[in-house]
């Protein structure tokens, strides 16, 4: 993400400061160091140190329930992890959750952006309402959905479902429906993000290409497939990357809505690591799970960035 932000700056500064000479360059380095120091010290302290600690912890047996058994175990936690069915199922759930929410956000967001693109009046309303879910705390969102929306005895969704002839459903108690529900909630909260980004990208597309296409008597669908989509591709890929990162580390909303239940039906990897560490007090193994999550995140972002470069 930031890599792209940094690279152009560098090439830019080459030209700009090439004439200043060696002494100036040295002063510049010192100045840069002074400017960077506070932020980087803070980052070292709040991110790098905990990461080292995390990796170190993951090589220990560290169980708060039985401190007398604690000790260095090398890769033992990772060996156990590879044969832990619950790890694999939570990883799968994480991937399904991420894939489904990201796909839905992009699809709905794009459709909506196309829908309101030409709207003269009313677009302002869309923008305004679209802001609302995005600024809310996922914990509050989870709470609202779990109670006032999805509670089967008095929640509004169930009432609507019953009236639509679907019958009273156990939205959070049935393994499949619970998964659908948490995906729907995440999609509800974050689709406006995709919508706003894609709407802005659409607005910046050159109008004359469309004119040319219209003269060529291309249908609306053809115009979309051949012109809009390719032009939007960079924006879509970026939305996918950003939303994927967020979905992979999502926590608060699922935590408040289902806490991973029923059973382990919505237990994403993040949540499994949390439960292992804080409910079962197995800190060492929980750390190994967190490291696994980090590795998965790095691999997926690597793949996505590679995709982005392959234009």
């Amino acid at each position, binding site marked *: 993400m930031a890599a792209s932000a940094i690279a152009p700056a560098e090439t830019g500064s080459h030209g700009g400061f090439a004439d200043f000479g060696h002494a100036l360059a040295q002063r*510049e380095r010192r100045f840069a160091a002074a400017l960077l120091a506070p932020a980087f010290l803070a980052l070292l302290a709040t991110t790098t140190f905990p990461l080292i600690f995390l990796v170190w912890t993951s090589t220990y047996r560290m169980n708060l329930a039985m401190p007398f058994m604690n000790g260095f175990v090398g890769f033992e936690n990772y060996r156990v992890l590879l044969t832990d069915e619950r790890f694999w199922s939570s990883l799968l759930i994480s991937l399904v959750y991420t894939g489904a929410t990201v796909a839905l956000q992009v699809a709905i967001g794009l459709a909506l952006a196309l829908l309101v693109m030409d709207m003269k009046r009313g677009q302002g309303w869309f923008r305004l309402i679209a802001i609302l879910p995005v600024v809310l705390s996922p914990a509050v969102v989870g709470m609202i959905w779990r109670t006032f929306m999805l509670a089967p005895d008095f929640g509004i969704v169930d009432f609507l479902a019953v009236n639509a002839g679907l019958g009273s459903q156990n939205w959070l108690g049935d393994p499949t429906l619970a998964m659908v529900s948490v995906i729907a909630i995440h999609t509800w909260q974050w689709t406006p993000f995709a919508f706003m980004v894609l709407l802005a990208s659409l607005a910046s597309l050159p109008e004359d290409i469309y004119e040319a296409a219209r003269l060529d008597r291309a249908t609306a669908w053809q115009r979309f497939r051949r012109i809009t989509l390719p032009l939007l591709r960079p924006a879509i890929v970026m939305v996918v990357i950003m939303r994927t990162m967020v979905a992979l580390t999502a926590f608060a909303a699922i935590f408040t809505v289902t806490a991973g239940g029923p059973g382990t039906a919505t237990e994403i990897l993040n949540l499994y690591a949390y439960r292992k560490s804080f409910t079962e007090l197995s800190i060492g193994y929980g750390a190994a799970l967190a490291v696994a999550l980090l590795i998965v995140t790095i691999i997926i972002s690597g793949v996505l960035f590679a995709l982005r470069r392959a234009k």
Partner: protein
Amino acid sequence: MTGRRLHTAVVLAISSVLLLAWAFPIIWSVLNSFKTDSDVLAYPPKLIFSPTLGAYRDVLFGSGSILPNLVSSMIISVGTTIVTMLMAIPAAYALARLRFHGKKFAGFYVLTTQMLPPVGIIIPYFLVLRNIGWIDTYQGIILIYLSFSLPFAIWLLVSYFEDVPFEMEEAAYLDGASRLRTLWRIIIPQVRGGIAVTIVFVFLNAWNEFLFAVVLSGNTVRPVTVAMFNFVSVEQTLWAKLAAVSVLAMLPVVVLGVVAQKQIVKGLTVGAVKGGGRR
């Protein structure tokens, strides 16, 4: 022609349904917050009821008042924003404009710090803060919030700093202005807009944080996202109050969202080229 009118009608219908779908959960919570518990529990759900301010009175002025928690959230968010900006602006400037060894690595480092799973690093946080006696203190929480607000702010700002034309800086520099002075006088005014956008996002992310706050907060410092759970009590769920607290927790960010609508859209779309927030 009728096809065109039909088209408009369909667009209008679909868009109204979608608008409603987005606004509804929020509207519904607001409605519930003006109900009594028995009206909240009513089946079929009541759209028409005699509104009461009872829930708000209780959560604001009752024994388990949420006011201190709103204040806590505010102090944490404002504090995080100030500290983050003070560190992020110079760092972003350096990354965007200065030439030095290891710059690429520094930029990459900022990027990678964002990938850390919060769940995994909360234990070390806890242990360290405990050792320095910073559990349940503002400085403790604000320090920890830097872990996600700082990288985000830095690379949002970097993109704004990059857009400032180099000529301006060079001119000032050749006039004999010191680097710091140039930064303060020439560059920062140019990125005012970007700074505003960043402030909005840092504030929002700090206000909405949940996981760190659960583990690291206590009686003195407990933001509203955590305190909210006290209304799903041991003895009974206080539905109307829960709704009222949710609305109060949403209020500041919704107001900010509406007021700073332009900044948010800008931040998101700039972010779409450079990256985005972390929740």
